[in-house]
């Protein structure tokens, strides 16, 4: 009989991050997966990061996670998006070598004490409302905590035209018995769908007619932990577009698409529509962009991002061959739609432990999210909380104003989902506080206190912060000048000497011409410039956050019966009952819940407390 502190089911991005967090917490961990060699597999496009997502990855990085390091071990093209906009909304996107990424993950895991089992989990061991481990064909694996990260494998069905097959990813089975088990446990389940494009041989493309998009130089790093010193060879991406002929073929055959056949009940993501959807819903657009992503170094395969589809194979072939530069291309694998089960994430507490079963955590796509980054973040949160609970330490919960991870977990557990959930920067109301570049300042000390990052890294960080403070003091606050150069390259004279900091606050200053900087100081200077520009906004946000902090943190007892609170509208009662928010702060986030409703809830909680006291 195998016994562990934590059993993680699933070897995707959530599972890997969960297991690695448990390991770093100093506990024993089992990772159970269908196939060892597929651990860390990127099942969709081979890229990590982008808007809202690189923010998450940097947060994982600040807490010593595995994803950012594997990204740098396999990154083949780096680009910072939104460079013309401010720091808070800039994002790094990294194209990875699909195979190298997986190997990087496996290499890191192999250097740990995590026990990997190549088994299919068929059942959960449930005793009195508590999950005690898992059952595979051959084994019972016991854990004090069990984390389920089954991705799209729960009852997964793949569709190409009218063909339907079982599986969560091409070439892999789906997890049907486990899915049945979850239905048996009466967890609230739903169905979602997503899609992928066909994969194409790179050697059969005419890249010369496409727009080349090289990576940026110097090549940045996703991880600031400093573990990866050397990048892989860098490659370019390419851009091509669909045209009228493409659209004609697609609209002539839309009825053959699995997604339009009526066979799929799952809800797809609006931000990731199939090409059928794009042509149908945006008929006035003459062309859609396709982003050609290389699959890896020396790999004769590309991922044509932007034409995900579930049309029959013949139609896929026809429309792809109308695209500039793809006329002669050879398709190695056809696009398909995949439909899978998810569990309503409102089932979970903010620790990602389910409310219905103790010691049972859900993380990743099973909670209705999409994206490697969102999955990894949940894995980290579930893993850390499982470890914390075993060690009888407090829950690890990030607030919305502290991290995108906080926004993610709060959105999922409070609002649930209506489509596969993806992070966007606009989901974070405190976006200006949450830059991908200040993740360490927000989270590293917390991670150090949890004991999940090495002391050396913390020391480096603390020293850097000291240097930064010193830089601001001596170079910006105390250095005063009489004139500066503005954006029009004219010299502006001041009536009296002013500090560099105060000049940085002016909108007309040309920052590049303000002071001499060495390479390290450049980073400090950029940070200071942002902090000065955001200052007014951030002060306002901070005031708002502190104003209701105490009230927002007030816990709502799970026994609360919203129906019995007089004065709440039926709509609000229904929403609150579904969501079961854990705190007043979460409740107030729910649409339609007014300040008056919050007051009623507060009063009702108090009433309950008093009644208990008097009973």
């Amino acid at each position, binding site marked *: 009989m195998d016994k562990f502190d934590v059993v993680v089911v699933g070897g995707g991005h959530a599972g890997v991050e969960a297991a690695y967090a448990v390991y770093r917490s100093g506990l024993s961990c089992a990772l159970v997966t269908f196939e060892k060699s597929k651990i860390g597999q990127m099942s969709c496009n081979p890229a990590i990061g982008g808007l809202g997502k690189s923010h998450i990855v940097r947060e994982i990085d600040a807490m010593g996670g595995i994803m950012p390091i594997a990204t740098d071990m396999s990154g083949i093209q780096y680009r910072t*998006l939104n460079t013309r906009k401010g720091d808070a909304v800039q994002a790094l996107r990294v194209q990875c070598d699909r195979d190298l990424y997986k190997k990087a993950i496996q290499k890191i895991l192999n250097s740990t004490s995590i026990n990997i089992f190549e088994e299919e989990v068929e059942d959960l061991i449930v005793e009195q409302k508590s999950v005690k481990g898992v059952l595979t064909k051959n084994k019972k694996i016991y854990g004090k905590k069990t984390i389920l990260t089954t991705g799209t494998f729960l009852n997964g069905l793949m569709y190409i035209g009218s063909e339907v097959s079982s599986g969560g990813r091409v070439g892999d089975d789906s997890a049907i018995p486990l899915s049945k088990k979850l239905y048996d446990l009466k967890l609230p389940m739903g169905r979602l769908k997503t899609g992928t494009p066909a994969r194409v041989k790179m050697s059969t493309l005419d890249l010369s007619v496409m727009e080349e998009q090289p990576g940026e130089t110097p090549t940045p790093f996703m991880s600031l932990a400093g573990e990866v010193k050397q990048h892989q060879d860098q490659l370019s991406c390419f851009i091509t577009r669909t045209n009228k002929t493409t659209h004609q073929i697609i609209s002539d055959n839309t009825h053959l698409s699995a997604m339009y056949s009526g066979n799929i009940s799952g809800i797809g993501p609006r*931000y990731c529509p199939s090409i059928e959807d794009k042509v149908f819903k945006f008929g006035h657009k003459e062309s859609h962009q396709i982003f050609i992503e290389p699959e890896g170094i020396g790999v004769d395969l590309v991922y044509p991002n932007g034409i995900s589809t579930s049309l029959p194979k013949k139609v896929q072939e026809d429309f792809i061959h109308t695209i500039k530069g793809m006329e002669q291309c050879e398709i190695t694998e056809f696009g398909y739609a995949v439909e899978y089960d998810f569990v309503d994430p409102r089932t979970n507490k903010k620790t990602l432990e389910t409310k219905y079963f103790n010691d049972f955590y859900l993380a990743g796509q099973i909670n209705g999210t999409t994206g490697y980054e969102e999955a990894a973040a949940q894995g980290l949160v579930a893993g850390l909380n499982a470890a914390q609970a075993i060690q009888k330490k407090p829950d690890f919960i990030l607030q919305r104003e502290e991290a995108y991870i906080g926004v993610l977990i709060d959105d999922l557990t409070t609002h649930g989902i209506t489509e596969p959930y993806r992070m966007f920067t*606009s989901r974070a109301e405190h976006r200006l506080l949450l830059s991908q570049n200040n993740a360490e300042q927000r989270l590293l000390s917390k991670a150090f206190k949890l004991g999940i990052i090495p002391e050396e890294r913390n020391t480096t960080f603390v020293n850097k912060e000291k240097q930064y403070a010193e830089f601001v003091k001596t170079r910006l606050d105390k250095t005063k000048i009489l004139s500066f150069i503005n954006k029009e390259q004219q010299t502006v004279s001041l009536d009296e000497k002013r500090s560099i900091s105060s000049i940085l606050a002016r909108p007309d200053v040309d920052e590049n011409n303000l002071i001499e900087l060495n390479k390290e100081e450049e980073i400090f200077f950029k940070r200071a410039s942002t902090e000065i520009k955001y200052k007014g906004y951030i002060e306002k946000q901070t005031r708002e956050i502190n104003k209701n902090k105490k009230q927002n943190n007030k816990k709502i007892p799970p026994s609360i019966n919203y129906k019995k609170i007089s004065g709440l509208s039926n709509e609000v009662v229904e929403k609150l009952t579904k969501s079961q928010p854990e705190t007043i702060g979460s409740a107030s986030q729910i649409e339609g819940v007014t300040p*008056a409703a919050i007051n009623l809830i507060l*009063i009702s909680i108090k009433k309950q407390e008093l009644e208990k006291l008097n009973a």
Partner: protein
Amino acid sequence: MSVVFALATPPAKSAICIFRVTGRGCLSKIPELAGSPLEKNKKFYLRTIKNKSGDIVDRVGIISFKGPDSYTGEDSFEVYAHGGLGVMAMLVDVFKSLGFDEAPPGEFTKRAFLNNKISLAEAEAVVDLIDSHDQGGVVLSSNTLSGDFTEKVLGFSDTINNLRVRVEGEIDFSDEGESFFDSSLPNELSLLVENFKLFVGGCLNKKNHSAKNKVMFVGPVNSGKSSVFNRLLGFERALVSEKPGTTRDLVESEIFYNEASFSISDTAGLRETDDVVESKGMQFALEQLNSVDLVVGVFDSDEGSILDRFAELSNEKKYLKVYNKTDLGHVVREGVFDCMVSAKTGEGFDGLKKLISNAFKSDISGDYMYLVRDRHIGLFQSSINHLENALLKLSEDAGLELIAEDLKLARSDLNEIMGVKMSDSLLGDIFSSFCIGK
């Protein structure tokens, strides 16, 4: 919980007014408010309150109640100031400048309950209070109730949202090959600011508006004007006696009815007199007649000549004829009076209030005329400031994330005015307007 304040006495002109302030940390603000701390708890101190620019607002009495020994159970203090409307308005500004918020209805009682200061039964009453419809609170006159106002504010809110959708689209989906906005955006934004300002300019502040609702009582000597006046106010204000000619000065006060306020003045009765003081009073009253909006004649008989004389006096002003003393049972000609009341029994006063308030209804119609509260004017102003800031940042080519932030704040001010959290379907709006997704 945050520090809140509320006027504990009626918002009417009176000898004193009392403000209550409660919330953690409020006592530490007293030095800033009143120049120096209060040495002892629960002891009355005399202090001078100045505003931010250092002008004296009022000389007031202050008493502090350290929590939990206070009504709310939190640190609290009370300010006893002179009861002028101007003083009240200035004190509100001073409190706000210290970061205190105006308490929503039922807030003090709610806090008292949450801090175990009052019983469950009392708390149930609070539920009713909070549950009352005052939270939306935009409406002061039936004109604003008509939904027109709401529609206009929602319209502005939508326009702001549409602009924000484009800005947010450009931020979150910049690598999608879609173009979210072009040079038209700054123009649309500045058009919005213009229209919005025009609208806000057409919103009448209650404080300003009350000056317009001037009502003056006139009538023959001893017809009971002061009694009617007092009955209307709900308390003894004008000196009343059996002796004719008791009211010698203009006595002015404010009443609130149907959430609109009226400035009402009582005058000395008009008669030939040798009394110097009284005749001065009458002369003054006659001069004042020019600046009032509604004249209410109070009579105790239907004698034609007297009625005619006062009808002349009222000139071209709106004029209401009220018969007082119905309790005496005299028979009066039908159709002569607009309203029959008895100041003694209170009979007919609901009708009189209605007539007075209706007399002003037509004044606040018109295309852009809405009566709003102080709080709303403040929020409108804040919303405009955010929009102007967005426009400025756009012209400076500052980061789009700051422009998005200002648009968000501008909209949330409008949400607060409407008292509801409008659904924020920002992402949905982006997806339905633009083709997103690689």
